[in-house]
């Protein structure tokens, strides 16, 4: 496939409801497969009209990382308490 636009996606939709949440969904990469929504242990996520996943109940998120790791398209990131992206066993580089 053609070397098209860079992997840096253009724009991100407004997300007041996701402000406090540690789960961030990136609509440009989400293909609406529904896996994250179906298997989130706390039903934090829901499918929107635009066939994309949305954070519906951020307060319920227990940061288990399952949605991020089961997302086939790298469209979900989960931040820790301070809000930055950290691996479980400490940062490498």
């Amino acid at each position, binding site marked *: *496939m053609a070397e098209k636009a860079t992997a840096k996606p253009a724009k991100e939709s*407004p997300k*007041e409801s996701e402000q406090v949440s540690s789960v961030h969904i990136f609509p440009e990469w989400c*293909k609406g497969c*529904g896996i994250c929504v179906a298997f989130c242990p706390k039903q934090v996520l829901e*499918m*929107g*009209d635009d*066939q994309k996943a949305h954070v*519906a109940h951020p307060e319920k998120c227990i940061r288990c990382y399952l949605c991020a790791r089961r997302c086939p398209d790298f469209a979900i990131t989960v931040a820790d308490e301070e809000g930055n992206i950290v691996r479980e066993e400490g940062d490498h580089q």
Partner: protein
Amino acid sequence: MDYAEIRLSGSGGQGMGLAGRIFSESAITEGYNVCQTQSYGPEARGGASRTDIIFSCHQILFPNCRNLDVLLAMNQESSDKFSDSVREDGLILVDSTYVDQPPEGNRVYEYKLTQTSMETFKIPLAANLIALGIIAALTRYFSLESWTDAIRRTVPERFRDLNLDAFELGHREGREILHVEEGRVPVAYDRKRPVPECIKERFEDRRRASGKGGGSRKSNKRKKDSSKKKKKSGGK
């Protein structure tokens, strides 16, 4: 009409191939020579996919379209890429569910194909047949029987009614557009006209009859709050 070039373009999984086959089958029923080619990449979903159809009274030599009588563009990329290979008096139909900036041209029609399909038939996949209906009405290629016959021959049994309904919805819309353009019907034509009730009811009855009533997993979605509405509101 003794020679016409039609291009149905969109992304993988939007049914351009099936729509193309129905188009070609209709042409054959009316005795035309037909040649249909496809061009696509590795992606079975997403990615660019287009189907070219040429029908003619004479032998068709070169199989690819070069200046189009009809262009269907289901997304912005296809619309941008192919709109300038449409003839002067060619027709362009774009799915304004995804196409924000429609192309220039004197016969450009915007219609929320996928959205209408979702609202009427609960799935997006009938958009291609709605589009065929509109194109069939606007171009007056082939008789209605040839189209519906082709749909029956091409579409698997379990999707036949859905596709026939979608085609009829599109055909009705196309006739509506035609009447307005030819000034035959004085009524103010409002692009956001609701889907004709009779089609919706018949579809609902059949859904209840088949025991599929109630929302499927996809439809218990969150009501969009106003802040999330897309910048450009609905049809022009």
